[in-house]
């Protein structure tokens, strides 16, 4: 594994964890319990902002808020087009960046409400939780695949 691979792996592991923990915090709020980890919701907002800026760029070419990478958008689009998709199959194959951007914007607003201690719409909150849970699952699975060492005879790994 190269240095760049390992750096990307750490990033995957980190964002997978952020998604899992942020989903947990939102779930707590649906149970009427206090948020105990606002930091992780702040990080989820960072992610959503970056993905939203990427979506706006892809749909309209507007690069004003674009970050240095499109990875958050790539991952958000993977969630939307994957199993248990948040949009219909037909839509997911169109890769409607505008719809995705709109969806991300709505999520950002919902997470922001929870963070501010405001009452969020129950349906919107449920969608957010499903999205974050799926994101955590997809990124976590990719990280696991990269971390796993494969058993192979030495001859297939090269000679020493």
């Amino acid at each position, binding site marked *: 594994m190269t240095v760049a691979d*390992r750096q990307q792996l750490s990033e995957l592991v980190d964002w997978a964890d952020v998604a899992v923990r942020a989903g947990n915090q939102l779930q707590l709020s649906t149970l009427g319990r206090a948020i105990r980890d606002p930091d992780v919701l702040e990080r989820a907002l960072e992610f959503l902002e970056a993905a939203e800026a990427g979506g706006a760029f892809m749909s309209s070419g507007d690069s004003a808020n674009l970050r240095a*990478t499109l990875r958050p958008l790539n991952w958000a689009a993977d969630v939307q087009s994957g199993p248990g998709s948040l949009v219909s199959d037909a839509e997911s194959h169109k890769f409607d960046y505008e719809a995705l951007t709109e969806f991300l914007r709505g999520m950002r607003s919902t997470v922001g409400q929870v963070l501010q201690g405001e009452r969020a719409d129950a349906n919107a909150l449920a969608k957010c939780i499903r999205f974050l849970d799926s994101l955590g699952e997809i990124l976590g699975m990719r990280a696991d695949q990269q971390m796993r060492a494969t058993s192979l005879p030495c001859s297939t790994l090269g000679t020493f």
Partner: protein
Amino acid sequence: MEQELLSRLRTLVAFELESYEGRLRSLSSSQYPSDVALRLIQHIAAEIRAQRTEIDQLVRDFRDDPERVARGLSSQHRLLINRLAYLSSLENAQTEAVPWSLVPSIERLASVLIPNKHLLSTCTYSLNYGIRWYPVARSALQSFLLLELPAIHRTNAFLHVLVGHELFHPILNDFFEQHAPTVMARLRGSIQDLLARHPPRQPLPERRLDKLVELGRAIWQRALEEVMCDLGCAAIFGPPALFASLAFALGSDFDEPPSPAGQFYPPPRFRFRQVLRFAFHDWGGDQDVGGPVEAGDDAEKPLEKLCRVLNEKQFEWAVDVLRKQFGIIKKEVTKDTDLRAIHKEPLVEIAYGEVSQSLPSAWDYVQEKIDATGVAWAVAIDEIPQLLSKLEMLVPPGEISLESDPLGGRSASLSAIAIAMWVHHLRDEIPAAGLSLDDLLKDYHRECRLMLKAFEDVELRREYDSRRMNRDNP
């Protein structure tokens, strides 16, 4: 998940945490060439304690939701497994595992280039040099950088000049944050055109535009980042940066095209060409040092000054060595086999078009960084003749003697040491035809020892000067 399985998962993670802590305790009693390792151990131990708290809270929060607890535990397990690399780095950062005489010099250079970060030098049994940092926002581990040297070259001091390349990686973020959006905007247009002209056969999502633009950006950044680090190394160490990267790349294909399997690393020949062009004015050794990339600058160029100073001090042979070596490199970069490989793949070709456009501003950025830190090789050129004189007597070239103070002296600059050592070494290589491989290797080992000793002397001298200053000015 069944409660029974959940309980087993919890035991598994608890076992891992305990085992990790035990290994950390054991590593904290090992010897390291500086205190960075111990500080890192303390920070990791704090993160492990935080993980325990997180797990306890998770179990309390979701007593009635085993799926959510399982998901949280899996994530904590993953975080821990990902941090195993730190244990391996710490094991290989122990004094006997690293070129310990070089470590203080590397740490000092790092502290100038990357303030507020701690550098842990470690050796790995891997092909190349590398630097890593924990990319997680708001983690105390973010302030630690792990510098990896190839263990098989632990005592190969000549190659360790490449540390200058690695130290540049963490300081390029600003550049990419500033330039990536503009580049991505152009990439988006070019890739859309490409898709319109050559619709790829692969099914979705490989055709998804956001993934292709991100891939193009990654190819652009990988190429530019490596070249910028090469340029940074050249700005710090001067010609040895080019000599060391050429020597290091000799075992690989100079024209290896950027590919997913190779993490889109740019071909070595492409990198040499950019360094020769920007840092050394395309000098081919057979003529006067060439003109600047931007016309209108009449100031003496560092390479010109180096040749002049060496000639003035009767080290004409050293100028001949430089001429010959730059001639060799120029000949290599005149070939265009790397460019032909790049042009074979349309997406790579598009990304490299952006690399060419970005290079002038990338060089400006590197120069700004170097100017702000005062570690440019150009400021140490006057030291080189004296260091060469020491080397003629096999004295480690780590100190500059002062005529005004026979007992005094001062540390030599790292770049001056590297230049003197490389030039001296390459001179010895010339009449080596009659020597056996054993003799050549023996000479090489001796020169490596001289270089490592010089780097060690630099820091010892600095320490002495600092104590003397404190004593004289209490």
